[in-house]
């Protein structure tokens, strides 16, 4: 649990560092939002209470707090709050009925959208429909559960730093699987302990820092960059050699974007992994392999000759 917490904290700090600069100019480009942020961007907000005829300060529900820095650094940063939420939120106190308003889903805007066709939303949706989350909890579970509406930013496709992507993507899963409060939004079942459930994996810290949950838990296809079909646990990857081998599956998932099935950098097999990790069995050096084979062969040959000569000269 501590480990997971630490990991999450690291990410939070990271995200803030990255996004600090985006702050000022972005606020400027959506003035209507600053009204909402006046309350939803700070732990304590004030409003004019007409009954008391004075300003009153109250605490904001922490779950309704929105990080403006992250908001203006995400995919939908150009959006006004009321593009997704009802315009009636401009009044305070908000109308109670607003809580029941249906929210748009990704496909409402992205289906058949040319600008974002490269992401293959329709195929992602198909995969998602077959995932355990969707099949077991089609009512409660939506794309928003993993894609925080106020902070989701594409990583796998754009971030050069694979380690950051891994942390980012894993935190998506851990936001639930390491947080009972969010988990309970979906089900009242007991939340399995992730660390205990992966006891069989040696050096969990190293593994969770170098591979994503989805590497082992999804069906990887060629249609989309980020696989979305989360499989039942019985079908998760458990065999070490799926990754620890020359034709490592990591080349088809995590390193898909970078992968040139390769032996380029000084003869290193799967060299696109090497910048970030060293995977036993998957990274080998072609020339060293040949060289060691030759040396070992020569040594054995010399020994045989030496032994033969010794026998003959007896």
């Amino acid at each position, binding site marked *: 649990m501590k480990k997971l917490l630490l990991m999450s904290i690291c990410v939070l700090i990271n995200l803030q560092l990255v996004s600090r600069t985006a702050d000022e100019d972005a606020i400027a480009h959506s003035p209507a939002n600053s009204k909402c942020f006046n309350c939803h961007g700070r732990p304590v907000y004030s409003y004019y209470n007409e009954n008391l005829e004075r300003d009153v300060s109250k605490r904001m529900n922490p779950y309704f707090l929105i990080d403006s820095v992250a908001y203006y650094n995400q995919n939908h940063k150009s959006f006004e709050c009321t593009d997704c939420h009802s315009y009636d939120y401009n009044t305070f106190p908000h109308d109670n009925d607003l809580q029941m308003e249906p929210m748009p889903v990704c496909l409402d805007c992205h289906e058949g959208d040319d600008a974002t066709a490269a992401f293959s939303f329709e195929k992602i949706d198909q995969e998602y429909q077959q995932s355990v989350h969707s099949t077991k909890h089609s009512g409660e579970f939506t794309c928003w559960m993993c894609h925080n509406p106020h902070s989701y930013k594409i990583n796998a496709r754009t971030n050069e730093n694979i380690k950051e992507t891994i942390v980012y993507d894993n935190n998506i899963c851990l936001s639930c699987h390491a947080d009972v409060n969010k988990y309970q939004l979906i089900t009242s079942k007991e939340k399995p302990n992730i660390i205990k459930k992966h006891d069989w994996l040696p050096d969990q810290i190293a593994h969770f820092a170098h591979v994503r949950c989805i590497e082992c838990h999804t069906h990887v296809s060629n249609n989309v960059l980020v696989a979305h079909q989360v499989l039942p646990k019985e079908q998760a990857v458990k065999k*070490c050699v799926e990754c620890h*081998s020359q034709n490592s599956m990591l080349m088809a998932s995590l390193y898909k974007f970078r992968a040139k099935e390769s032996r380029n950098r000084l003869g290193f097999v799967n060299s696109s992994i090497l910048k970030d990790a060293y995977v036993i*069995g998957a990274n080998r050096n072609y020339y*060293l392999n040949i060289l060691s084979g030759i040396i070992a062969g020569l*040594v054995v040959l010399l020994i045989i000759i030496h032994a033969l000569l010794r026998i003959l*000269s007896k």
Partner: protein
Amino acid sequence: MKDQIYLYPLWIRIWHVVNALLFIALIFSGLSLQYSNNTFNLLPFDFAVSMHNISGITLSIAFVFFLFWNHFSGNGEHYRIKSKGYCAEVFRQFRYYAFGIFKNEKPPFPITEEQKFNPLQKFTYVMVMYVLLPLITLTGLGLFFPDILPDRMLGTTGIHFVDLIHIVTGFLLSIFMIIHIYFCTIGRTCSANFKSMITGWH
């Protein structure tokens, strides 16, 4: 037993057999890890990981034990290289193995209590025990506790760099072991040296 000398005290023999068995286990599991594959493996991957870890740690402990005893028991004397004329002596021994041995010449440096290793042997044992084994145990330790390794070294990840040293050293030691075992058959009889490594008497 009259012309025999007591060359290998008990602690060397125990250390040596432990060391040799562990080393063979390490070579097997190490090869299995390095060349692990989806289709065929010497050993199952997770088993090889545990086997390599456990044998490696035990071998490191045995190695520290060796360093300690070698230093305090006096056996370390045999590992001291005196500089004057040493190269020439190594060359003489080398010439003997390359030619003289086939002409049934006498070995140039017969084994005595004061000189249990010939110069070539001394050189290889010193290299192995004081250069390669420290290198492989230290890099192994680094790989076992990757947190202590620097994130990046010479343009690649610290783990990768250290692993390369580890693998190359492991390869050199494996080659040493093959040659070592072969040269142990050069004794009074083929099996004489192995017998002395068991009984201690030469």
